[in-house]
């Protein structure tokens, strides 16, 4: 990286010291990094030319913008007035996505990270859990003798090494963390270490407790809060990290309890039940709602129950909450869990299990930001209130200038990719290009075996909408049983369902459960995001034989009947919408 530094200094020196130059300094680095292997020396003339060209392009870009409005003046001023154009508090997937986009847009960016680069997703969430699911999924597969035999495969005894599976997850997390860090460094994003605190809406203080060598104060024109979340633990549940733990500890897979109670049957709980049962543990779900998997479309949840719960060593208690949990000692004393009826508040049962995992959702990590200094109060649960443009709202309900909040910290849609999309949207808004993210186009997935995925609204919600707005609702369904590729894999269990407006063809929601459902949802989410209708995507071609034909069949089985021109007003309204949608 010696050449890297040398070059950027040189590039900076060789160019005007204006803000534009600073902006550009990040860009040529990219090309240098790419060439580093073959050219350990600094810039050759070609590269310099490239760099200069880019610089010119950027200045032009800025100039064009300035001619459109006064945004550029602010950006230019930033050089003089602030250390950075944008400071992002928190470097999880949301902060990372925002930083990438901001750099792309020519901004000078710093991120402040108080814990691990990559945040929850990379270190304690989606990423390591996928490693566990991948390993345990294969174990489940190979242990399923019948399934293997049906394809003519004979498997001897299947065994696994818990520590090896756990190490796979840790290694994956650190590899992804490294990738993330390097990608930021390569773009010239400064990574500041410490916990951040607002001084005012342009000034952030950061530092680590007990460390005087780390920390400082930076100023920025815009600030994004992307501090994410931590596992939510309901009161009365003492976490000992051993027999009573959250997903943070569970991901380390330090031991395999014979019997685990999982409080909460959302996607975190479901994924862990998939891992645990594949590795030979038994699972009991404790769900406060009346039905298991409460966030899912009812029909999908029913099928999920059949595929993911029945037939596995899993049982569940619904309509109860764990009011008291007494940690145990592994192999010596079981964990005791007192169950209380959610409605009557009467203690109904006591469970004795080997371990208890708390997967009751996640709580925003917004403490210590000193939000009071910018006139902001979090809501009761700790979420930072934001407008639909991700602008932070003050206690008076008005937008706090130049401060944005994305990801789990605002609680709008607590998914890594949603945070990233919100980050991009926030950057767009701070650049004066109003952008509102359509959350209904954000897909969600649960990586069980088989996977579950969805985008948009559930059937229940769609029916409600249809009733309220008076449009005819179409429901199309297909089964994986009819898909050649799924049958070739002997994985014919599963279904896909699409909810759409019969009059306009607008897609309201798509739900899939089945093999690789998480990868299949994007055709639907992209269609919704780009406002394509059923008619639009009906002619799209899918390779045969692939699982994507499940969606092909789904879309083709939908029937849109546009209202005739002489129809009533609501239909006319719907008709008027069509050009927009098309």
């Amino acid at each position: 990286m010696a050449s890297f530094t040398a070059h950027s200094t040189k590039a900076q020196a060789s160019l005007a010291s204006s803000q534009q130059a600073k902006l550009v300094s990040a860009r040529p680095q990219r090309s240098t990094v790419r060439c580093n292997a073959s050219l350990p020396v600094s810039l050759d003339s070609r590269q310099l030319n490239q760099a200069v060209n880019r610089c010119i392009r950027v200045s032009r870009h800025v100039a064009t913008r300035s001619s459109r409005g006064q945004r550029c003046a602010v950006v230019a001023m930033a050089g003089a007035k602030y250390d950075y154009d944008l400071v992002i508090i928190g470097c999880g997937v949301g902060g990372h996505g925002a930083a990438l986009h901001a750099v792309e847009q020519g901004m000078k960016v710093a991120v402040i990270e108080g814990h691990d680069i990559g945040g929850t997703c990379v270190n304690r969430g989606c990423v390591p859990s996928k490693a566990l699911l991948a390993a345990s999924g294969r174990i489940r597969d190979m242990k399923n003798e019948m399934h293997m035999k049906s394809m003519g495969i004979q498997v001897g005894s299947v065994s696994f090494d818990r520590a090896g599976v756990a190490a796979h997850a840790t290694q994956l997390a650190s590899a992804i963390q490294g990738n993330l860090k390097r990608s930021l460094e390569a773009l010239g994003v400064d990574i500041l270490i410490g916990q951040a605190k607002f001084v005012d809406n342009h000034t952030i203080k950061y530092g680590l407790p007990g460390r005087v060598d780390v920390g400082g104060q930076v100023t920025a024109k815009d600030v994004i809060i992307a501090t994410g979340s931590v596992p939510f633990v309901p009161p009365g549940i003492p976490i000992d990290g051993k027999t009573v733990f959250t997903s943070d500890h569970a991901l380390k897979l330090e031991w395999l309890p014979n019997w685990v109670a999982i409080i909460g049957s959302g996607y975190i709980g479901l994924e862990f039940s998939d891992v645990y049962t594949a590795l030979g543990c038994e699972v009991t779900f404790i769900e406060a709602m009346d039905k298991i998997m409460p966030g899912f479309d009812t029909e999908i949840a029913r099928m999920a129950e059949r595929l993911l719960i029945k037939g596995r060593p899993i049982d569940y208690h619904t309509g109860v909450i764990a009011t008291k949990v007494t940690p145990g000692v592994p192999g010596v004393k079981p964990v005791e869990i007192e169950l209380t009826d959610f409605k009557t508040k009467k203690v109904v049962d006591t469970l004795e299990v080997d371990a208890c995992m708390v997967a009751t959702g996640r709580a925003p990590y917004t403490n210590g930001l000193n939000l009071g200094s910018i006139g902001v109060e979090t809501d009761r649960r700790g979420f930072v209130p934001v407008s639909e443009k991700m602008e932070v709202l003050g206690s008076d309900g008005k937008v706090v200038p130049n401060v944005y909040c994305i990801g789990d910290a605002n609680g709008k849609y607590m998914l890594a990719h949603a945070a990233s999309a919100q980050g991009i949207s926030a950057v767009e808004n701070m650049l004066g290009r109003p952008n509102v993210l359509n959350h209904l186009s954000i897909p969600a997935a649960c990586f069980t075996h088989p996977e579950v995925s969805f985008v948009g609204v559930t059937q229940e919600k769609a029916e409600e909408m249809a009733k309220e707005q008076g449009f005819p609702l179409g429901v199309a369904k297909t089964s994986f049983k009819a898909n050649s590729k799924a049958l070739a894999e002997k994985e014919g269990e599963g279904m896909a369902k699409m909810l759409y407006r019969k009059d306009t063809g607008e897609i309201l929601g798509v739900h899939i459960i089945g093999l690789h459902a998480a990868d299949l949802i994007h055709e639907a989410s992209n269609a919704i995001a780009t406002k394509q209708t059923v008619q639009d995507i009906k002619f799209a071609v899918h390779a045969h034989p692939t699982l994507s034909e499940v969606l092909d069949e789904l879309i083709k089985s939908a029937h849109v009947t546009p209202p005739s021109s002489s129809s009533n007003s609501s239909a006319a309204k719907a008709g008027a919408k069509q050009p927009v949608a098309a």
Partner: protein
Amino acid sequence: MASSMLLNKSAGVSLGAARQGRSLRQAKPTSTTTAAVKDVFMPALSSTMTEGKIVSWLKQPGDKVSKGEPIVVVESDKADMDVEAFAEGILGSIVVNEGERANVGAAIAFIAETEADLDEAKKKAGSNGAAAAAAPAPAPAAPAPAAAAPPPPPPAAAPAPAAPAPAAPAPPAPAAAPRADGRIVATPYAKQLAKDLRVDLATVAGSGPNGRITASDVERTAKGGAAPAAAPAPAAAAPAAAASAAAPAPPAPAKAAAGTTVSELRGTTKPFTTLQAAVARNMNESLKVPEFRVSMSIETDKFDALYKRLKPHGVTMTALLAKAVGAALASHPVMFASCTPDGNGITYNERINVALAVAMPDGGLITPVLKDADKVDIYQLSRNWADLVKRARGKQLQPDEYNSGTFTISNLGMFGVDTFDAILPPGTAAIMAVGGSKPTVVATADGLIGVRKVMQINITADHRIVYGADAAEFLQTLKAVIESPDQLLL
């Protein structure tokens, strides 16, 4: 492990009434619909659907149902569909449980109009239930007592043998729960297993921490404790099933748990269920056939050695035995013939189809047929057998796959039985009862004393068409095949 060598691993049941399935299938579920209790039928979800599998019941017995409300999810060849109730009332009882199949049109549940009719609905389920659920499979027949009577020999013997269904109320807990507070703590899988194996958790002693009941506790109970529980149901048919099996019907001394059940039954009389009645009818029918028995001892050392050699290639003992019988039958056409129904002639069958008894997990008995056992090679035969057993347990066999046998084998070797005799299934010439293979002191051909593994084969045959010499000659051939088994590989 002598006795385990000749195990028919998955089967092992005396065969007595294996073929009674026929008569049972004729005894269709009586669907007389009284006004107060309505049947819920397995619907035809597509034009090609002949049977459906219950995916899940959305309502449980006792739940109110209204017309048009989805009550059950049925899986057809293409998709899962919600089936709506067409009557208003209370779901009285479920006949076909989740995961089970039923033919289109068969009653799968009963809906009572009012609470007063609930008992009626339950009663209907009781009488119809067994038949409806069993419809795709032939009747679980008589033999359970024979199967269940002696506790299976220790480990290698049988994987969850038979697990006969206790139709009787589960025995109460006799000192099973060591927990001080008297609670039953069972793991999720233990609970599932208990439901599947119909074991009352109250009777299971938990070996886990704090007396927790684990899956293996349930399995152990099902194996050891199932005998007493199973006794009441099939006992009625026992005497007819197999003479030797008649004796042990009340599993005499042994276990403490056994004592409880037996004492509970003492001095009571229970009417036959539909199933038991059908079995009894068929047993009486069999008295019209003049049966006789011929037995022979056969050495199995070479046979066992061959099995050991072939086992890694997926060859099962059952298939090997069937193959040996098939090879022997080839030169004795009368042994797989049948007497014409009018008793005036012999029908010589074209194919050597060997039927073997398999105990079903729910207590029934089915006789999957290995067709052309003389011609099909041993490897293919083994694969066919594995497939048949798997589908038999899933109740997916086609009628042709369990009623086309022309010769039957019944194997009780795994229970340590030396010798027994079986009742001839109507419509066939002979049935072969296989005992366990045991090391036995013998005088060898060269005049020395040696130890050989010997098993007892006992043939029951229809004397109208098979004479003593026919049976003896067949046994001679079979002995030759089993004692020099390498020809089976050809």
